[in-house]
């Protein structure tokens, strides 16, 4: 058995109170020494147990109900959504490899108030992240002056892109469709309709590979390629 590390190191390690260099030193000492030293193993495990107990000194606090709503949604397998999530036809679809889109989870179709709250919290959480990106979507030349105020936000490296703001309903029997563009290639993010004029939409995608976002108006069943009815766009 090599020399025992100082017990102060174990105490600070258990408390997560070391800086990176010290942490590396501690982990090195622990991995080299502890397997052969029952005494030091016992010391560290005892301190880790104490640290777990100190947690209880913090006053308990009832979490918002939407916290469970968010967690529950992620631990429950998502049912396939036949509505609006059209099958990609092999003839026409141009799909960016590796893209995994669940389609849009629409505020007005999710229906439950808690889910709406949860999504709102997710947006707030995203924009409170120091790394977040926020882009404004501008009306295209086809829709100059339209009363559209939409923004998109995401945190680089993290899955999920949120669209929020307001826009008028699409024309009768039409829906809005989101497209993620990478050069001349595109991939659909799904279709949506505003609730009255409000939009709060999550797209399960890592925006990293894409350079722009486009929203078009399409037939109710959605399209496999973007039509000329372009509504708003933004560079990511």
């Amino acid at each position, binding site marked *: 058995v090599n020399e025992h590390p*100082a*017990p*102060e190191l174990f*105490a*600070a390690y*258990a*408390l*997560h*109170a*070391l*800086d990176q260099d*010290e942490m590396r030193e501690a982990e090195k000492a622990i991995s080299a020494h502890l397997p052969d030293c029952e005494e030091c193993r016992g010391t560290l*495990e*005892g*301190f*880790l*147990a*104490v*640290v*777990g*107990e*100190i*947690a*209880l*000194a*913090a*006053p*308990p*606090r*009832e*979490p*918002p109900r939407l*916290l*469970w709503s*968010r*967690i*529950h949604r*992620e*631990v*429950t397998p998502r049912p396939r959504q036949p509505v609006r999530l059209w099958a990609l036809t092999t003839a026409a679809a141009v799909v960016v490899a590796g893209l995994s889109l669940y389609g849009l989870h629409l505020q007005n179709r999710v229906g439950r108030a808690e889910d709406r709250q949860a999504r709102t*919290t997710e947006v*707030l*959480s995203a924009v*409170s992240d*120091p790394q977040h990106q926020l882009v404004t979507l501008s009306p295209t030349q086809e829709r100059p002056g339209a009363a559209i105020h939409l923004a998109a936000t995401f945190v680089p490296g993290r899955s999920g892109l949120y669209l929020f703001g307001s826009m008028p309903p699409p024309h009768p029997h039409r829906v809005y469709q989101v497209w993620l563009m990478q050069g001349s290639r595109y991939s659909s993010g799904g279709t949506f309709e505003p609730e009255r004029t409000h939009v709060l939409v999550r797209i399960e995608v890592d925006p990293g590979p894409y350079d722009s976002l486009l929203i078009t108006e399409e037939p109710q069943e959605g399209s496999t390629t973007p039509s000329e009815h372009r509504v708003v766009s933004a560079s990511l």
Partner: protein
Amino acid sequence: VVHDRQEDQRDAELHARILGGDPRAFEELYRRYASAAYGLAYRVTSHELLAQEVAHDAFLVLWRTPEAFDPARSPFRTFFLSLVHHRAVDTVRREERLRRRSSRMNLGPSEGEDVTEAVVEEAWLAHRRARVRTALEGLPPDQRKVLELAYFRGYKQWQIAEELNIPLGTVKTRTLAAMRKLQRVLTERDE
């Protein structure tokens, strides 16, 4: 003590079911620990949204990698709340501006603040909580201060030395003394 062990056993059973992918077991563990986890995360971050993120991420880690917990090594409670604590500390360290904000708040764990009345918490956990608080209150003030800065504010030891204007070696000594005393007191009460 017997009651504590029964509850630890219950946690272990629920964890075993989570290993098998049982969402109901996960929901029950959430109910048992959500207020403790969220309370701890809030205490460290002083920020509701960040606390939600910390609790959210910790529970998802539990669901996605339940094998990270080894029931042979510790009770589930200490494992899970340590997980929450580590994530909360990492979060607050990223948010220096939050540190400045929290430094204006009294983060002592037990002085003049107790919101447990507003929280529906299982009796055994509340009982355990009271014992931990009593143990902390039994520490000499200088040791308790060092421990609180490390645990509830996420300070590293050199930062504690700067904050209290004491040598780093003194921080290490006080930390070790505090940890040993807490271990002794909590172990004695468990026996």
